[in-house]
């Protein structure tokens, strides 16, 4: 959200799921295991590669949510399965960073889920768990590119 946006009525800032996804939009992803070990701690520890590695059920690409569709980070955390909810964190990055990495964002609304659900099709579990080493390596390098451009909104707990 730009400074100018803060003066606009909320309904003009929020986007519908059908609205085009723009480069300046923020995407959020729920993560586990963001903890950094105590060694030379930094105030803003980098987002780990694993944040953008596909989970097993992400065969169509990693799941993210558009913040512009009205989803707050805490809502994304609270939508996690109960057994891991407390440990979950939330990271974010701009659509621009995804496109810079050579990837794209595809809208994939979830009728019973949070609004603004999207996937990054190239980062899918079929490729990340493939027997083809080149496919696996490509996913890892992409995931690392996104991690290096991401920031932490809610720190994951150990």
């Amino acid at each position: 959200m730009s400074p100018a946006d803060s003066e606009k009525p909320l309904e003009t800032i929020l986007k519908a799921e059908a609205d085009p996804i723009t480069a300046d939009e923020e995407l959020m992803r729920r993560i586990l295991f963001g903890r950094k070990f105590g060694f030379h701690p930094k105030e803003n520890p980098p987002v780990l590669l694993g944040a953008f590695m596909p989970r097993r059920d992400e065969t169509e690409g990693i799941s993210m949510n558009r913040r512009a569709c009205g989803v707050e980070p805490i809502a994304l955390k609270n939508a996690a399965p109960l057994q891991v909810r407390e440990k979950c964190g939330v990271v974010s990055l701009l659509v621009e960073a995804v496109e810079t990495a050579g990837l794209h964002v595809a809208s994939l609304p979830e009728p019973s889920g949070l609004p603004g659900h999207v996937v990054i099709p190239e980062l899918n579990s079929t490729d990340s768990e493939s027997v083809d080493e080149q496919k696996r390596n490509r996913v890892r390098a992409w995931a690392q590119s996104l991690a290096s451009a991401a920031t932490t909104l809610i720190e994951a707990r150990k």
Partner: protein
Amino acid sequence: MNTNRATSATEQLGSEADWLEIIEETSKLQLSADWDGAGANSIQPALVRSTIAFLERSRHEGQPVPDAVYPLSSGSIIAEWHNEDRSRLSAEIREPGRVELMHWFPDRPAEFSSIPIPESCGSAASPPTLLEEALGNRSFETTA
């Protein structure tokens, strides 16, 4: 980056306590299936043992302590190092006895290699690996 104070060798490589902590944390990564609530594969004991052997080898060779060690949904384990030049090294253990390394750079293609993990640290010397090349001249960020 804050460079108000000099970085000691211990800070650069991590203390013995840091190593013990990360190895202890790694030993707890033996997880049951669905540990992520999204259908994750279990983390097999043999993989945990292999990861610890890899960490012990890195420690024995004087490498820095990883910034993080954590499991993936696929059932593998990753050790990750973040360098001051923004390059990152990740070591993925997908099967016992083998580690897949990726040295990622912000401005050029990533480099990949694969090396065996000896069963115990201090075994026969191996040729220089990507791990050693990537971490050998590592510089560090410090926080005052």
